[in-house]
């Protein structure tokens, strides 16, 4: 299993948290909140494409809406492989940050 890139990790997490209601607009807004600045659609869709190709997310089309001028929403949900990838990313992050957070924040507070 290939390691996730940071962008992929953010997107997977967003999709997971949005739980069944994840589609383009929501995912972007959520990701923007997490990173604290605008997440672009360019990055969003090229990363989503990769995730789809790797079978980490599953696409599902919803109902057309007026705001979308008659276009359907495409909902994304996490696949079991996606969940597994997220888990292993978490493990990596945990090991990466183990015992460090306190030290880093101490530095910050000085």
């Amino acid at each position, binding site marked *: 299993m290939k390691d996730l890139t940071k962008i992929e990790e953010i997107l997977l997490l967003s999709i997971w948290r949005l739980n069944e209601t994840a*589609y*383009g*607009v929501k995912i*972007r807004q959520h990701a923007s909140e997490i990173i604290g600045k*605008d997440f*672009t*659609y*360019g*990055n969003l*869709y*090229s990363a*989503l*494409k990769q995730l789809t190709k790797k079978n980490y997310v599953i696409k599902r089309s919803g109902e057309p*809406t*007026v*705001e*979308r*001028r008659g*276009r*359907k*929403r*495409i909902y994304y949900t996490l696949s079991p492989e996606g969940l597994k990838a997220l888990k292993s990313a978490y493990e990596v992050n945990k090991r990466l940050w183990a015992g460090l957070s306190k030290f880093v924040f101490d530095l910050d507070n000085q």
Partner: protein
Amino acid sequence: MKHIKLNPPRIGGWFLRILARQEDEFSLLGDFDEEFAGIAGSKGCLRAWFWYWRHLLLSIPAFLKDFIFWGCIMFMNYLRVAWRTIKRHKGYSFINIAGFAIGMACCLLILIYVRHELSYDTYHKDTERIYRIVQDIRTQTANRVFAPISPMVAPTLKGDFPQVENSARIIPARSRLVKRGDIVFYEDRFMYADQELFDILTIPFIQGNSQEALIRPQTLVISQRMAQKYFGQANVVGKTLEINQEAYEITGVVTNSPENTHLKYDFMVSMKTLSDWNEMSNWYSTMFFTYLKVKPNVDMEEFSQQVSRLADKYVGEQLSIWGTTYHYFLQPLSSLHLHSRLRYEIEPPGNPVYIYIFSMVGLFILLIACLNFMNLSTARAANRAKEVGLRKVVGAQRPQLISQFLGESLLVVFFSLGLAMVIVKFSIPILHNLAGTLLSFNELLNPGMLFILIGGGILIGLIAGLYPAFVLSAFRPVVTLKGATTVGTRSVSLRTVLVVVQFAISVVLIIGTLLMYRQFNFLKNQYLGFEKEQKLVLPLRGGIIIQENYKTIKDLFSKHPSINGATVSSSVPGRGVSNFSIKLVGEEDDRNQSMFHLYFDDDFIPDYGIEMVAGRAFQKGTKTDFMGAFLINEAAVKALGWSHPEEALGKRLRTGHGVRVNPIIGVTKNFHYRGLQNEVEPLVMEFLPWTFRYITLSINITNLKEVLAFVESQWQATFPGHPFEHFFLDTDFDRQYRADERVGRIFGIFTLLGLFIACLGLLGLASFTAESRTKEIGIRKVCGASVAGIVVMLSKQFTKWVLLANGIAWPVAYFAMNKWLQNFAYRIKIDIVTFLLSGFLVLGIALLTVSFQSFKAALANPADSLRYE
């Protein structure tokens, strides 16, 4: 929810549609519209507009990255597929790549050759301002244009014409004996030159001062390789060299002469050395090649007009008494090699016709290779049809398929180009041996050339790949996937045309080669009017003079029993003859002609077996023959206006700048003292001992070794200190055809290559045909067809094509070769045999190629070919 009054920007949507990949298009546009609506509802339209455009722009880099990324992935996929195709069809690929590589190697070689020929004397600084001035000596009836002119012209140019920046003279002097200690050689690239030459031509100095190298008498500038040859080092300024027994001080060393100049130098002696010579102030002399450089922005038309009659001011009166006028004209330096063929050119000029011929041949071969590629690619269409069908089903668009196949063709082309470079690299030395042309591989490596190579490669790849790409990409998936095998046979008619064109070109080239070969053979075997076999010639070079003792020297050599005779002469047939004006004495003669002169002793006519048609030859013991009589040839009889040779006898001629007035005592039959490119021209013969430069020995070659040893020992005893040199008259005479023969040989090589490439193509096509008819052949065999019958059936089609090709090629070849043969005064007749022979040759080779595949197909067990399905 608030009603949406304002639509999102339309142009923005259009942009997004371009940026997004197909499958995400709707989702992406929807997302943008949704957010736009949201913002418009809560914060107003302006904000929404602003947001829309900002995000659109922000998205571009990522989309672009994505696009390039997937483009690369796809490209890698194409490459992989191309590589797999190449590997799976090794035979086809070999034919494709080998054919292309050989074709391109030919083209590259020709390109190098043509560039070399065109680059003559273009490397000089301000080369467009450098000219050579030459002279047209006109009488009422004739004019003679000389490349070398009077030594007075150069100083006059500088003195009288403000447009002239500088001018310089040179006299090329062949074969000087150069000596340093034990190192003795005859040197040919030898000249007397003015100091100003270095200001006009670009001749870089390695050592010595270029501003004052040739200002003193007895000084000398040598090339780097000569410094190495005589001294083993470059640091030789101040040292001395002995030339024809005189000492000269070396004042400079220059870089070696480039190959692409008409004026190749190794030794340049100061013109000041000759300042006591009375010729140096002679306005009527024709010995000095004169170069000049004009100032920038000179009106050349006006200047040419002005210099045209520059001699009139000084010697106009005398000239008008003689009834002659001198016209001078200018030749641009860089045009000399290809476009100047005057009397006494320093180097035999190149032939622009050959440049056209070779360029055509190169293009033809490249065309054959390209046709091959197109042919094979479309023929292979059936194999690729399934792939195309599947790609289309999976969603490939036609442009994608076209770019895939174009990419494949580019891959093959560049692969071949690389291979072609390797071939060129290794074939240059071979070509040098075979054809005597020295080309440099490095000419290919300058940026301009590389640009041409890469650009040309792309162009050829696109052209050659365009047709297959369009044919292949046009397949309809439903048809191809159903398993129809007829795909690709649609373009049979076009393939036929291509094969016919290929073979027509090959036939033209073969006919050309055969006719050239026959013409050269004809020239060599033509009876020349004298005996050229078994003649050993000893040139007397490096200042040997035998005016006083030529008789005793002749006796010395003819002592040997295998030497049947010895004669001395100013020149031998095939070597140069000089040209002087003659006048008929006592009769009205306004012709004022000039004729070639040959000087020899009383043994020459019998030894060379030249026939007399009237009068007698020089006789031993007849005192008046010695410096007191003329022989002329039949052509001269005609030129002087007599209808019968007998009329000439007793008439008196004036020649030798009007000094010698003597009677004509005999007329010889015409003999070819020059090559057969020219008609025999009028010739005047005299017995003048101070002109003798060659000893001709008539030898019996049965014991050649012994004779040579004897002659050499006699030479060493007679001319100590002069290296022994000799040549055989027949081979030396044939040297005159060498340049043409060389061209013939190169032509032959390219012909073979062209035919080879065409055959490769035919082989590929034949094997394809056989393959696609496997089942048919199987059924025929089951029904009782014989192997021979099947071979004939498969070959019949190709035979028809080749015959058609012959039909096209013959008129073209006839026209072209007829034109070429006009170069020779004596030439073969173009006969049908050569054409038939070429036709059968090509047909034979084609059938051989095809039958190889046909037999394989015919011999296959029908059970195998019918078993599948």
